[in-house]
């Protein structure tokens, strides 16, 4: 699309061409430099700074540049970090799985069973939650599940309650689903809508049943999108602070809670940085593995 430009048809004189090239270069720098400078200065440098800080030390409550591995050995050997790491990873993976399974029938319906106008409207509706204050949504969910909340006022007379969700891992997962489910339904709907109809019809014509078509034609064809959706759910849940704090009651704490506590009250920024760098590395590994899963076998076949 953006090929190198051919020389203008009406050949300018050599002198003009040089000045033109200078104008062109100035033009390119004017538009090209600001985004990269901004993201370098306020994204790359702070992240690099975070990595550097993992080797600093805190001497009598003051941050001191240093080259110590003490923060790393402390955090990696700390029981509270290991527990939080396993807990956060497990709960995020569980959320990705639940969200993917729960979203699929809805995405299937939106992709195949409703009119295009309805689908467009529903897709717009799925964008709405992203622009609704997430802490406020968690607050509402908290109220729903509270002992005198709506869910228990309905369940208790039926002899089904009271339901204890708040301040449990279940509460955290419910909050993670509030965060991730709209995105997973949205991405799965796009993935399924892009499966060539002709493949599905061919399967039906060849006598393939509906469930078998889903398992052997639709899911393999939409694999990339489905994996991307699940990965996003994992990434969002893994980094979330609000759900584990206000629905999970911070017990046990997740990695993001450890970071916030260390920074906001503990004031041990180097240790918080170690946790943050571990989170980034984990997410990078997870994303690489998922990209491998999404694209891997397809290359072999081709």
């Amino acid at each position: 699309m953006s090929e190198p430009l051919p020389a203008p048809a009406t050949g300018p004189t050599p002198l003009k061409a040089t000045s033109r090239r200078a104008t062109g270069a100035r033009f390119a720098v004017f538009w090209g430099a600001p985004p990269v400078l901004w993201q370098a200065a306020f994204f790359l440098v702070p992240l690099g700074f975070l990595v550097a800080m993992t080797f600093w030390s805190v001497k009598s409550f003051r941050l001191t540049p240093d080259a110590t591995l003490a923060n790393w050995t402390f955090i990696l050997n700390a029981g509270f970090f290991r527990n939080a790491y396993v807990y956060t990873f497990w709960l995020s993976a569980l959320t990705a799985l639940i969200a993917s399974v729960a979203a699929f029938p809805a995405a299937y319906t939106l992709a195949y069973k409703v009119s295009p106008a309805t689908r467009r409207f529903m897709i717009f509706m799925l964008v709405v939650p992203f622009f609704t204050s997430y802490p406020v949504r968690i607050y509402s969910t908290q109220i729903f599940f509270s002992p005198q909340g709506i869910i228990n006022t309905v369940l208790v007379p039926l002899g089904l309650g009271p339901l204890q969700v708040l301040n449990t891992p279940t509460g955290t997962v419910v909050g993670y689903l509030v965060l991730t489910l709209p995105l997973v339904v949205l991405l799965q709907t796009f993935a399924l809508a892009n499966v060539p109809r002709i493949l599905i019809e061919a399967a039906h014509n060849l006598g393939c049943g509906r469930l078998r078509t889903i398992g052997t034609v639709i899911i393999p064809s939409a694999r990339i999108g489905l994996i991307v959706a699940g990965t996003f759910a994992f990434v969002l849940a893994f980094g979330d602070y609000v759900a584990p704090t206000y629905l999970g009651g911070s017990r046990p704490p997740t990695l993001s809670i450890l970071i916030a506590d260390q920074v906001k009250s503990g004031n041990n920024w180097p240790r918080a940085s170690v946790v943050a760098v571990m989170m980034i590395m984990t997410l990078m590994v997870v994303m690489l593995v998922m990209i491998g899963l999404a694209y891997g076998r397809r290359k072999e076949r081709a």
Partner: protein
Amino acid sequence: MSMAALRRLLLVAYTVLVFAFIFAPIVSTIVFSFNADRFPSLPWGGFSLQWYEAIFADATIQRGLINSLIVAGVTCVIATFLGFSAAYIDYRYRFLGKSVYLALAALPPTVPVVILGVALLTFEGRVGLSGTLQGIIVGHVVLSTPFAMALVRMRLADLDPDIERAAWNLGASPWATMFGVIVPFCTPAILAAIFLTAAVSFDEFMIAWFVSGVNETLPVRVLAMLQGQVSPRINAIGAIVFGVSITLVVLAQLLLGRMSGRAARKKG
């Protein structure tokens, strides 16, 4: 009822259930913001505007709202300019390291905001930006530029590169072409990007929470209120924030809808 119809009914019912789960917190926020009772429960305690009166009388909430509006207003202009620039560079040039350039421009939303928040806090503490509105704006621009870039890039995909070349061949300078051809063509996407980035900034709470110090934005105030006891004032704030954000998103959507409608007509 035939099997197919029954199957469809079940699927639609399930989908409604999923949407109910997604929208119940949003709907209840709005409904209970008008509820007279302190504790939001059934049955409904009668219509009241007292929670709205309470938040408009609260100076910290007013300050938060003003801070949020300032941050979103500045963020959307800078982020849209940067996003437009990056999208245009992607559209127009091919150069060594372009994939790195684009990755740098597009990557920030994949990093958890809690980590961006800590990184910006430690960095900004060194350069004297932490605790200021500028410090929040800096982080929000990092986070929202990729959204602006995506919107403009989608629009530019519909612009035939030959049109720009034709303008150059007719003697127009790159600058004249930019402001005579590219910018007018991208105007709907640019406006959509302004609204969308403003909405992203207006709702962002994690970076702002780490960086803001005493200059709380509205979502940071909400986070602080969540630590306290149940208060329907949170619902009232939520309803107002919802109104502002949705207005911005609907405006963006309308502009994009007009854009894709026109593109479809052109192709069809």
